[in-house]
């Protein structure tokens, strides 16, 4: 395995090892580029994952201090935990459910399609679906997405069967077990899904794609990739010409190290990535690195989300098998007649008893609450995920008071729902309940959004430098050898889960970076 010198200024330093950083690291390594990945969390291999929600949360979740504000309920119920993401090698690809969907054509052209929505800072992406299609295809092949590349769909579990029966009664047409980056048959050295039911706690069998046991070991095998776990980036440095020169990070002992770099790519998720850029402010860049537009940290999106759980007369045991076991796609279209722009997906979701108690209705108590939990074995559940509106005022800033153990200001996350988000959620709750009512639900529970799993948009792509932070390749408008490689480059969120698009963008970005390096452009 490679080990690069701290003073080796020929390496590409990537901050983060998740869907964006882990993929970019491997892709570059395969092309012969030397890469150092700085990962804030420890390396925990999949055999060490635990099928226990709270224990796993302690093992994997990002629980470093963050602050929250805004009218979203998460700020009240989980004020220190705005996001449910991972601090470990593999990032949130250890925790993700595996849903791998492509954007629709219009979802890259939201400004042109939706027009002027008051309060929304809409912008078309500087890329189109046509441009992205070959990269989506590469991503699907890499990840082994079901229903692509001749890979069969996963078998439906009980939770899916309830969803499917209700959907069909209601007349929904596009209902299936999803496009999942979970092996339905052995592939790429990994086995088929054992229906363990703890996708969110890290897949112990390795059937679900995660950079932890795919991209990262493949990259390491080339001899061009070094992953440094428990290495928390605190500042990106630059020279007097404005080019970045390296990353200062705290190593596993807490000692500060400086890794020199030819190129720096930031992939720390949409909360930490802008935080790092803002914390890297200097005399030359007083508002933070790559922030001449003032858009770093802004347009924070988290998807319109919510869940519907329904209780039936007889058992469901929804927790058995794949957490996200199927999907209804009929509402994902843009049909403003419903009272909102954009669309949403309906995807099965199951959480165990401990998390159901924590998330069903945070703060609730008494018999109405315990009656719902008494119905747990007879429950089916779905997650609602749709496009939310980018708003300039939804943003990540540096907390003026709270600092981390290295003395760096922590991220403060402000979020208010846009009226479009509220209208979409109300529609989604109603349709979700209707699906279950159609097959005899005795009661349905609209469940508020969990801490954010899809964090997007805080370093967005734009054609013009004044509108965003990075160009169509994720390259900073201001600093040529600085890239953003995670979901924070999203110009808009689309209805679907973001990981496939993050991976497709990372593969495309690796191609761009390697080309530019060869041409000595950077």
């Amino acid at each position, binding site marked *: 395995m490679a080990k690069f010198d701290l003073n080796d200024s020929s390496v590409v330093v990537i901050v983060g090892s998740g869907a964006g950083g882990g993929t970019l690291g491997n892709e570059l390594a395969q092309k012969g580029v030397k890469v150092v990945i700085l990962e804030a969390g420890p390396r925990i291999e999949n055999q060490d994952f635990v*099928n226990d929600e709270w224990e796993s949360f302690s093992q994997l979740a990002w629980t470093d201090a963050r602050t929250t504000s805004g009218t979203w309920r998460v700020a009240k119920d989980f004020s220190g935990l705005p996001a449910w993401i991972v601090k470990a090698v593999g990032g949130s690809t250890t925790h993700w459910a595996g849903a791998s969907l492509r954007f629709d054509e219009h979802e890259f052209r939201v400004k042109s399609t939706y027009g002027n929505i008051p309060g929304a800072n809409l912008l078309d992406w500087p890329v189109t679906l046509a441009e992205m299609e070959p990269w989506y295809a590469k991503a699907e092949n890499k990840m082994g997405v079901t229903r692509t590349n001749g890979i069969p769909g996963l078998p439906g579990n009980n939770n899916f*069967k309830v969803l*499917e029966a209700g959907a069909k009664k209601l007349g929904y047409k596009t209902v299936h077990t999803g496009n999942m980056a979970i092996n339905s048959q052995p592939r790429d050295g990994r086995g088929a899904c054992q229906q363990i039911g703890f996708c969110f706690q890290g897949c112990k069998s390795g059937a679900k794609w995660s950079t932890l046991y795919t991209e990262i070991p493949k990259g390491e095998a080339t001899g061009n990739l070094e992953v440094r776990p428990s290495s928390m980036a605190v500042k990106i440095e630059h020279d007097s010409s404005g080019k970045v020169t390296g990353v200062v990070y705290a190593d596993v002992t807490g000692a500060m190290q400086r890794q020199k770099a030819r190129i720096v790519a930031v992939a720390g998720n949409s909360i930490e990535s802008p935080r790092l850029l803002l914390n890297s402010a200097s005399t030359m860049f007083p508002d933070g690195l790559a922030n001449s537009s003032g858009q770093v940290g802004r347009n924070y999106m988290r998807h319109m989300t919510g869940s519907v759980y329904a209780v039936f007369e007889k058992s469901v045991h929804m927790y*058995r098998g794949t957490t996200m076991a199927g999907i209804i796609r009929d509402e994902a279209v843009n049909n403003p007649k419903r009272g909102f722009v954009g669309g949403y997906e309906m995807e099965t979701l199951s959480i165990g008893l401990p998390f159901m*108690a924590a998330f069903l209705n945070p703060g609730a108590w008494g*018999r109405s609450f315990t009656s719902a939990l008494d119905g747990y074995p007879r429950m089916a559940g779905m997650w609602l995920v749709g496009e939310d509106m980018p708003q300039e005022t939804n943003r990540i800033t540096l907390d003026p008071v709270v600092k981390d153990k290295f003395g760096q200001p922590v991220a403060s996350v402000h979020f208010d729902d846009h009226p479009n988000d509220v209208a979409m959620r109300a529609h989604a709750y109603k349709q979700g309940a209707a699906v279950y009512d159609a097959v005899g639900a005795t009661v349905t529970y609209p469940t508020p959004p969990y801490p954010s799993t899809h964090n997007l948009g805080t370093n967005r792509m734009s054609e013009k430098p004044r509108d965003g932070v990075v160009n169509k390749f994720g390259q900073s408008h201001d600093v040529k050898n600085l890239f953003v490689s995670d979901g924070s480059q999203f110009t808009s969120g689309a209805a679907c889960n973001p990981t496939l698009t993050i991976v497709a963008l990372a593969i495309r970005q690796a191609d761009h970076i390697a080309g530019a390096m060869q041409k000595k452009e950077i």
Partner: protein
Amino acid sequence: MREVDRRSKHSRRVFLKGAATAVPVVTVATSVAVSVEGAWADDASALSPATMKTLLKVARDIYPHDVLGDSYYITAIKPWDGKAAKDPAVKALISDGISRLDQNARDRHKVGYAEVPWEADRVVLLKEIEGSDFFQKVRGDLVVSLYNQKEVWPRFGYEGSSAEHGGYINRGFADIDWLPKA
């Protein structure tokens, strides 16, 4: 469909003072439970036995599950005593919170909280202090300490860890048999 065995596998060791006791728990469980009732509360060092017993009642009233015996709630609230022993602020939070609840109960019903006979009346008393730090901390702790007990899970038809059993691929992940034909 494969149903989950809901019968309690929970030994009543929580009622017994010595964890290493050789008493065959299952055969004498009922009598043991009666004879040493309250003994668990006498173990408390920082908080008074009366406070612990009232806290038990409060816990039951916050998350009432009639299918669960007191032992699960005792397991859930007992750690407060240890936390109170370590931190005077926690001791004050719990003691003062219970005192206030008892006072409110006496004003209204002439007896302490735990002696108010009907749940509905006790819930009214809890509603009054719902916004207090005491209530919020106790509830916030309980939502984890009660529902995160592995012994509780089968009572709710939840099977917990599955990887060591090979997942559910051969254990009923798709065995639902009552849905209407599509």
